Structures are given as structure tokens and as C-alpha cells.
């Protein structure tokens, strides 16, 4: 079927198009060049409408054990947002940690067509993929978590060379069906199991003697040498600790120019100034980002209200449990592999720290110059549920609105932020970069995140509206792989997306050492640990899309 989208105003940063009126043609799921004579089977009149590719959330906790712990922990949160089944949609729950089906519907209804789970534990990869397998419409993928696994730390303590580490990283990526590599509190989750309660960048793990700096170095090198597009995805040391801005600046310097993505950097940008010994480090962070072109970030914006934090960082989550609201929380040590911590949070605009966290995130967005190196996230659900993105976009695009909200937060926090003095307003093109073209480029998705011929037809159509929140929360149309899935902000058709992976090469002999280790110390046979493709595809809905490595 040939579909014509007529006369829309196109924002396609991947092709350098910023607000030009242009027709789009879709055939067999992809965008094609204007055909010579063919008559479209279906035409949509998009004159006056804003057209972007489907949005990509490059960091959202949508699959894996800690999210399901968060769900189980919070029945009272679900009860406030029950979601009924319809003739095409399954029932479920929404709000802070939605059920899988509702996750897919609500992302699609905001114009998102792809999401990446950033913390795929190797031992929990099956669960993450099974949960994502029950998320309709969206494409998905995951970054496999390393850095606190005993096998890596043993390799490092034994002074194995970088090649041995590369082989292990590549093997793990293949086994867990990942498209990137993440490290969370490098070595810290492991150190917590040895009763260490904090771990600075240059502090040694009590058992292994390695430091977070060492771990970042070998993993960032591995990712680069393996040719994986997405740079090492780093949740740094000292999350949430006042003064951690210095840790973050040291982390940027310490990586020595290697590509590195610092995630939810808002939580890592805190100073110790002022009466409350808590201040914004956003200006220093933004300056460092602007200067170091090897660094990309996503913000992890907090927005006020009830949510739940679900993180692999068991060490920091345990330390933060005293802030749990409601007062219940879970931590887990997991399989000599990783850990997790789940702590419900209620961010309050009249709480000084929360209010300043809100301002720090926005300062970061507005002070980083290059929209290709900063990404729009709330670290769903940790800073706020993903359904708050339209509100966040309005805060970025509308200075008056932003300052109106600023005037309502804790007065001491207002004094501690430069936000009111920042005039910048994001443009539609910059939003399209952050949420589409930039994300696709960062992750290495070929043929997604753009609207030129050859791309898959993931397309979102909005009605231009000066109230950007209203505009972005209810697209007129969303197409996924060329199929119309959303009309007027409601799902009209349910499809199933693909799982994006990379498959870096490794020396098969890596399994010799791994097999001995598994047989001796782990609780599963090596052969039973590795995921097979059919685990994703056998239900007839899932598929795997392998992306190329960098040459």
C-alpha cells in the first residue's frame, strides 16, 4: 500500500530539514522517494501540521526485575490509575510504573515509537526481554549492565589484558541481546556486598582492589574497540550525594577522551554551598559538557509528584531509603552479577532539595549548547513517569511558563538557581534532535529517527499549538513501520515492534574460562545462561534487528 502524507511541516534534523513543507510517501513500512506516477492508496492531508519521526526514549526503565518489584510494591499507586481493556487494547495499570501493555499504548499515544531499557542485568536479561516482549507497538532494546559483576572484577584483579575484557563484554552483549553497555556505580554494587557503603571514583573495592576509575576505563575502551555505536552508558559514583558534582567532573576528565554517556546527570550535579549545604552544579557540568565533545548526557529531570525510583545502584538506594515515601523499600543483591534498589519517592515543590533538583535539571538542559549531545529523559520512573514528557517539553520551550512554575517552588530553592535569568527556549528542531535524530545517532540505529527515504516509517504528526504540553501529549497521527497506530492521541491499531541489538565478535575461547567459572561458582550452567534468538521470536510477535558495528 502506498500512503501519502501531504503538505506537513517537516522537522527532520537527520536530513537537515527544519520546518519545511514537504510530502512524505510510505510503502511497505518504509519512507520512499516520491514515486513518479503512482496514485496513493491512502492520503493524509497534513497541511499546517508538524511532522517528526517517531520519538526515541534512550533511557527508560521499561523491562526487568526491579521494575516488576516496583510494580508489586505499589498497589495503591496502580489503584489511582486503572486502565480498562478495549476491543483492541489489554487492561492494566498506569501512573508511576505502568503495566507492560499500558507502557506501549501510552508511549505510542505521545508519539514515541522506541524505548531502551538501560539496565539489563545479564542474569535478568530474559525477564527484561520477556517484559519488553509484552510492550506493544514500541521497538525496544537494552544496555547490558557490567562493572559490579564478579567475573569482570576477577579479570581485572588477575591483570587480564584488554582483549580478554573485550571478549567478555562482547560475549555478554550477545548472550543478553543488548545494543549497549551500561555501568552503574562502577564496582559499587559489588562493594556493597562487602559492606562498603560508599565508593568514590578512586576508592578501592575492599576485596578486589580495583577502583571505579579503573572499571570505567576498561569498559569504555572495550565498547569503543568492539565498535559498539552507543558509548559506555555511565550511571556514575555517588548518585544523589551533595558535592558529587566534583566526582562527575573528575569522571569526565578521567575517561581521557574516550566516548562516554553520562546518564541522569541531574542526580550527579550537586554542590554543597548555601545554608542547606546543597547547591546546583549544573553550570560547571554544562561547561564541561560543552568543552568535552566525547561526552553525551541525558538529564533525568525530576518533576513533582509521586513516583518510584528503581535502580541497579543497591548501595546508593540503600543509603536513600530514609527518604522513601511511602515508607517501604527493597534492595537486592543479585547473583554475583549486580543488585537493585527500589525506593518510592514523592518529589515536593515545597521541599528545598526536591525544588532545587527540579531547577538543576532544567539549568542543565538550558546551559548545554549542543542538542545532539543531550537527551530528554526523566530516567523513567526515577525522576518522574515518562507520561510527563509533554510537560517537560513545555518547560523547555516556554520561558514564561517555566518562570511561572519557578515562582511557586520553595523560596530558598528559587534563590539558589539561575534559572530565572536563562532566556533560552528550545525550538521544535532542537526537541526533534534530542528526542529523535540525536538518539538514533547515539545508539547507532540505522534507518530510524529520520524521515528521508529508506527510513522505517515511524512518524508522528502534531497540531502546532503554542501550549507545547497540549501539542506533545496528543499527536494527530502516529505511524509505526508505516502502519497507523494512533489517531488523536488514542491507539487505534496494535502492532509489535522489533528488538534492536548489536552482535560484536568475540574469541570463542572466552567460554572456556567462563564455563569453569559458571560450573564452580554460579547457579546456572553456561549453556542455560545464554539467551537464544528464539526466546524473543518464538511467540510470533517478536523479532530481532541487528545493527552494524562501527568500522
Amino acid at each position, binding site marked *: 500500500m502506498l500512503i501519502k502524507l501531504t503538505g506537513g511541516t517537516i522537522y527532520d534534523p537527520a536530513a537537515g530539514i527544519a520546518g519545511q513543507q514537504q510530502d512524505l510517501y510510505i510503502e511497505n513500512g518504509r519512507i520512499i522517494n516520491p514515486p513518479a506516477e503512482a496514485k496513493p492508496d491512502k492520503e493524509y492531508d497534513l497541511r499546517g501540521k508538524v511532522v517528526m519521526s517517531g520519538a526515541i526514549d534512550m533511557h527508560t526503565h521499561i523491562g526487568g526485575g526491579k521494575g516488576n518489584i516496583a510494580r508489586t510494591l505499589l498497589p495503591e499507586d496502580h489503584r489511582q490509575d486503572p486502565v480498562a481493556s478495549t476491543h483492541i487494547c489489554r487492561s492494566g495499570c498506569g501512573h508511576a510504573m505502568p503495566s507492560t501493555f499500558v507502557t506501549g499504548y501510552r508511549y505510542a499515544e505521545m508519539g514515541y515509537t522506541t524505548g531502551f531499557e538501560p539496565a539489563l542485568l545479564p542474569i535478568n536479561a530474559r525477564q527484561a526481554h520477556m517484559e519488553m516482549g509484552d510492550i506493544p507497538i514500541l521497538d525496544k532494546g537494552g544496555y547490558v549492565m557490567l562493572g559490579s559483576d564478579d567475573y569482570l572484577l576477577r579479570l581485572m584483579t588477575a591483570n587480564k589484558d584488554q582483549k580478554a575484557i573485550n571478549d567478555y563484554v562482547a560475549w555478554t552483549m550477545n548472550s543478553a541481546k543488548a545494543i549497549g553497555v551500561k555501568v552503574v556505580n562502577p564496582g559499587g554494587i559489588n562493594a556493597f556486598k*562487602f559492606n562498603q557503603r560508599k565508593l568514590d571514583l578512586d576508592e578501592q573495592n575492599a576485596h578486589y582492589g580495583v577502583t571505579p576509575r579503573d572499571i570505567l576505563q576498561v569498559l569504555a575502551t572495550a565498547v569503543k574497540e568492539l565498535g559498539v555505536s552507543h558509548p559506555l552508558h555511565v550511571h556514575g559514583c555517588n548518585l544523589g550525594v551533595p558535592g558529587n558534582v566534583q566526582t562527575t567532573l573528575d569522571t569526565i576528565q578521567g575517561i581521557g577522551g574516550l566516548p562516554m554517556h553520562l546518564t541522569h546527570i541531574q542526580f550527579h550535579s550537586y554542590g554543597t554551598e548555601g545554608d542547606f549545604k546543597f547547591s546546583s552544579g549544573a553550570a560547571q557540568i554544562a561547561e564541561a559538557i560543552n568543552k568535552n565533545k566525547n561526552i553525551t548526557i541525558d538529564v533525568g529531570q525530576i518533576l513533582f509528584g509521586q513516583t518510584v525510583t528503581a535502580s541497579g545502584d543497591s548501595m546508593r538506594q540503600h543509603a536513600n531509603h530514609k527518604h522513601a515515601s511511602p515508607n517501604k523499600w527493597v534492595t537486592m543483591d543479585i547473583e554475583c552479577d549486580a543488585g537493585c534498589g527500589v525506593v518510592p519517592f514523592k518529589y515536593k515543590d515545597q521541599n528545598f532539595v526536591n525544588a532545587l533538583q527540579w531547577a538543576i535539571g532544567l539549568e542543565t538542559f538550558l546551559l548545554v549548547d549542543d542538542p545532539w549531545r543531550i537527551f530528554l529523559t526523566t530516567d523513567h520512573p526515577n525522576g518522574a513517569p515518562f507520561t510527563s514528557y509533554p510537560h517537560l517539553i513545555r518547560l523547555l520551550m516556554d520561558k514564561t511558563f517555566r518562570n511561572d512554575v519557578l515562582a511557586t517552588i520553595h523560596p530558598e530553592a528559587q534563590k539558589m538557581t539561575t534559572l530565572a535569568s536563562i532566556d533560552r527556549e528550545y525550538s521544535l528542531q532542537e526537541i526533534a534532535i534530542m528526542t529523535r535524530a540525536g538518539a538514533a545517532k547515539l545508539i547507532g540505529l540505522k534507518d530510524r529517527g529520520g524521515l528521508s527515504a529508506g527510513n522505517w516509517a515511524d512518524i508522528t504528526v502534531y497540531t502546532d499549538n503554542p501550549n507545547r504540553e497540549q501539542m506533545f501529549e496528543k499527536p494527530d497521527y502516529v505511524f509505526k513501520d508505516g502502519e497507523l497506530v494512533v489517531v488523536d492521541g488514542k491507539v487505534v491499531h496494535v502492532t509489535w515492534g522489533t528488538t534492536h541489538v548489536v552482535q560484536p565478535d568475540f574469541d570463542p575461547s572466552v567460554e572456556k574460562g567462563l564455563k569453569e567459572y559458571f560450573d564452580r561458582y554460579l547457579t546456572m550452567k553456561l549453556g542455560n545462561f545464554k539467551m537464544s534468538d528464539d526466546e524473543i521470536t518464538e511467540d510470533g510477535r517478536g523479532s530481532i534487528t541487528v545493527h552494524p558495528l562501527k568500522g
Partner: protein
Amino acid sequence: MTEITEVPSPFCGIGTDDLTIRVDGISLKVIENGCAVNTPLFEQPITDTMPRVEGKPVSLDVAVAKAAALLRNTRLPIIGGCASDVNGMRGLLALADCCGAVIDNMNFIGTRNNFLALQDSGWMNTTLAEVKNRCDLLLVVGTDLEAFAPRFFERYLWTDAMFLEDTGQRHVIYLGKAPSGDASTSPNGHKATILECEIIDLPEVMAVLRALVKKQPIRAESVAGIAIADLQAIADQLKAAKYGVVTWTAGALVYSQAELTVQMLSEMIKDINNQNTRCSGLPLAGKEGDQTANQVCGWTTGYPARTRFSRGYPEYDPFLNDSRDLLANGEADALVWVHAFNVASVPPVTDLPTIVVGRSGMVFEKEPDVFIPVGTPGIDHAGHAYRMDNVVAIRLKKLRDSGLPSTADVLNAIETQCRLGYDCTDAGGRTTRGAVAEH
């Protein structure tokens, strides 16, 4: 005849995956690493190959059509058992969503003790590989661990560990219930400490133990027949251990408000972690798909596997959705029983229309209206099952060609038939369905 190695078990909950099984046609023989729990469940012969309607053999299509017809005009069907693999649970939840059923995992009465504690205050838990490599002190509360999982000690304690010089020096303490055998005696003869009491006295004993951990003064000299000095010794050992682990079986705490015992020990673990050492909980569960049921129901609905769909959206209530009460009170009007693992796990006897999707070989006191024998995950078809520690899903293997359909095959077929019969958005006159805002 073939031999298949490294076979994972969906039955025992502790994720044994080193069984060797000889396959001869459709008969199985566990020839290595069997145990009292796993071996009989693997070796259970196939006796039923044909579905039955009202006791008479019929084709699968006829049985599915009959099941759908029985469900079509119901107002509150129950889907009980809920014991299958991940795909089986997916199919079960889709069917429940379609026909407005109450789903209720058969082991929920026990598991509820854990969920109520979790949902009220949370916990700090660990997993089996951490136990194997780090645990230097294991406190077993109110359960006979080796009867629950015969190979627990062999696989996870008396074995190599990364962070312990001599695993034979690990200390095991039984509190409440004595073990039924000697599996807890270490290879070098180190015996477990055993402090027995009546199970029903555990709330008091645990409260005192937590008080001692928190250095609260205790005036009594004994509690439930256990000397305070002995409990003080446990408290001291927990605080001296580098990585203590406290384990329990929620279903073994058979007294009312047992969730408070789970909460007491979980809060005690948190207290120990605030006294400069590590300690973790390890709830024993995961047999025959109970963990799988709660996990899949968790991501599909947000809630554990005692949830109703009768108003069009999931509603969790750990008490009101108890299927035994719904059957006894006459609120339910049909029963679907799903159990792919154990022929002994038959449905409760009821006069309501009953559909059983069960393991081949089930013997019924009262023949159900429809019986559809299904294959067992990990024997007749591949699949996924969750271990007791919740994080680890194991990949189950297909061992033989029995021709039996999977739970998912059957439930998906019934759901498809139900959808043909009526529009699921306004099923059976349930006018309240869809009353809340659409997503």
C-alpha cells in the same frame, strides 16, 4: 533413546539445571542429579492424550469450543491453579482479561504472607548465587529446608565459594522447626544449631530476636521454650557474620497474620544492615510456577496473581479475591483450573461448570465438564519459569515429542473462541466494564 544433559527443573524452585534425563519415546528417566521432588515429576507417565468433554474423548477443537461456550455467559469465572510457564500465564491473563475472570494462584495463601509484608514495608533480599559464594551464616526460620528443596545444601552451601576459604565452616541455625534429615551437617561434620518451638509461637520468638538485635532489654528468661540466652547468641552471630542470610517458607507459617512474622524478620534484617554488616533475606518459593504466576501477572497488571478483571480492569485484593471463598459463597459461576506441572494438584470439587487444563494423568473425584491434558513446560515444550529468588528466569527445554499442546496453545484457543462469541468490551452484560477512563 537419547540422554539430555543440563536439564533445568521447573518443579523444585531452586533452579537445579544439571539433571541428566534419558528419553525413550515418551518415557523419561532421571539418571543424574534427581531428587525426591524432581524425579517423580519428570518421570510421571503420560496417560491422557485426548481431551474429554463430560468424560468422553473428543478432539481438541471440540473441547476448546465447549470450554468457550461454558465461559461465554459467565459473570464471574475463576481461573485457579495458575501453574504453568511464562507463555502459559500470558495466555491465562489474556483469557481472564477477555472474560472478566478472577485469577488466583493456588499457593497464594502462603505467598500472601510475603506480599503483605513487602507491600507494607519492603525487604532486603538476596539470590542463590550470593548465598553460595558469600553466606557464612544461614538462619532457617520455621521450615524444613531440605524437605522443601532436597538439594539446597549440596548445591548452595557445601560447595566451592568465591569468598569463603572453607565452606564447611558455614554455620546453619534452625529456628522453630527441626530439619528432617542431616543435609545441613557440613561435610566436615559441623552440625546445625537447632532451636525448636511450636510454629504458632514464631511471632513471639521472632519479636524477641529482633529486640535483641536492636539491643532492647528482655526481662524474660525464655520464650516459647527457647532460652533468651540462645536467642541472644543468634543475634550476636547475625551481627558478627559478614553475610548472614535468613530464609523462610511463607507457606509454612500456618497461622493467622503470619505476614507479621515475615515483616518482623525482614525488618530485623534491615536493622542488622544498620549495624555495620550485611544480612539478607531469602524467601523460599517458586515451586510449580507460583513465582512465574506472580511475575507475569505483575508486569501485565501491576499486581500479584490474585487479581480480578470483572470490572474491565485489574483489581488486586489478597483477601476478597480468594477463589475458595468465591466458590463457597456462590459468587463465582465457573471454574477454569490450570495446572501443567502436577497431576496431584486437582481442582476443588464444585457444582459449577469446570474446565481443567491440566497435566496428563490427573485423576478427578468429579469429572470436569471439560478436561484438556496439556504438556508440561520443560518436558513437552520449551518455556520459561522463575526460580524462588525472583530475578532468575530459567529457560526450560523440550525433552520429548508427546504431541500434547502447551497451556498457552489451549488458553489462547479458548480466548480466541470467546472473542468470537462476544465483544470483550461489553461481555456478558457486564455494563460496568470499560466504565473507567480509557488508557
